[in-house]
């Protein structure tokens, strides 16, 4: 049986430049802009504001849990620039383990975009999500997000989901808000990290 083992010695000195053509050693194409980690008091929403307009794309990487007593994984909404109007659409294809299905909403104020595990589910388990907000400040384009998300509860329930959301607005994105549903709050250790990706 062949085993290939890499030690930390193999990992030192391997910086990103060899994997990103056209950039020199030390250049960064992905920057951490801001990270929010929820404290003991919880929070109903997470907002990133004053987003720099110097990147091509944004990426949000989130691990989320809410304090609902529900035994179901819940969604979170994704909104831009404080717009709470019915200016969004979303689509999803999802697997629950038992079945695969698809959903769509249009002209909604609540575009479902992320998986959030609930307080009534397996302890220590968080929903995980990667959100790509593409061309977030390019003029003349409505804002489209691509999301991969999921949560697994070791048999209690589980989801693997691919979402898209559409914000019918061509304004540059200057703020992003993640919001829970049904009056719940994100619990302690929930984290959302915003990154900028250069073009």
């Amino acid at each position: 049986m062949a085993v290939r083992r890499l030690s930390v010695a193999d990992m030192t000195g391997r910086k990103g430049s060899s994997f990103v053509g056209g950039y020199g050693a030390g250049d960064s194409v992905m920057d951490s802009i801001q990270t929010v980690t929820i404290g003991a008091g919880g929070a109903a929403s997470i907002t990133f504001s004053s987003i720099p307009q110097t990147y091509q794309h944004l990426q949000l990487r989130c691990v989320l849990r809410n304090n609902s007593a529900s035994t179901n994984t819940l969604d979170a909404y994704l909104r831009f620039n404080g717009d709470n109007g019915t200016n969004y659409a979303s689509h999803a294809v999802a697997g629950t383990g038992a079945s695969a299905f698809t959903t769509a909403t249009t002209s909604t104020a609540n575009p479902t975009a992320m998986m959030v595990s609930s307080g009534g589910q397996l302890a220590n388990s968080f929903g995980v999500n990667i959100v790509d907000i593409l061309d977030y400040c390019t003029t003349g384009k409505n804002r489209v997000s691509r999301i991969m998300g999921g949560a697994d509860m070791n048999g209690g329930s589980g989801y693997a989901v691919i979402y898209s959301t559409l914000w019918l607005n061509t304004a540059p994105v200057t703020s992003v808000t993640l919001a829970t549903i049904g009056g719940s709050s994100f619990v302690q250790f929930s984290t959302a990290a915003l990154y900028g990706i250069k073009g």
Partner: protein
Amino acid sequence: MSRTYDALASVTLTANATTVTFSDIPSNYTDLALVAQTRSSSAAFIGEYTVNGDTGTNYSWTRLEGTGSAANSGRVSNYGAMRLGQVPASTEPWAVSQCHFMSYANTSMFKSNLTVHISPSAFVQAWTNLWRSTSVITSFTILGGTYAAGSTFQLFGIRAES
């Protein structure tokens, strides 16, 4: 703003191998991303991976897949590994995978993983994997069958500023 996305390790198999292990993973990143291109040395098999040498039934997963003729989903609990996806036979096109270990060093939560796996002649698959441990991930082993020479595995660290 500090550098965020670092290439940690890369391997291209020069011979067939039944396992590939990344060990001594530094704990000063937020997430890990594995990018892989794989093929079997013979018949297709299901690629999997274990964490920190744990071969117990401490894993579970949920799958979403499209075959071209149907959309399917499956789930398993108390399992012995995370799922990478269908590794194609030696005569088929290479599969590509992205596996994201989220908050891998956070000791306040179980470890979840999002994987997208494309086996071009058969499946598009999305997996949510769970390892029921709050331990920091310091190693993982890719296994499940015999990976063909030429299979590649690249590990990246992604760091969020606090």
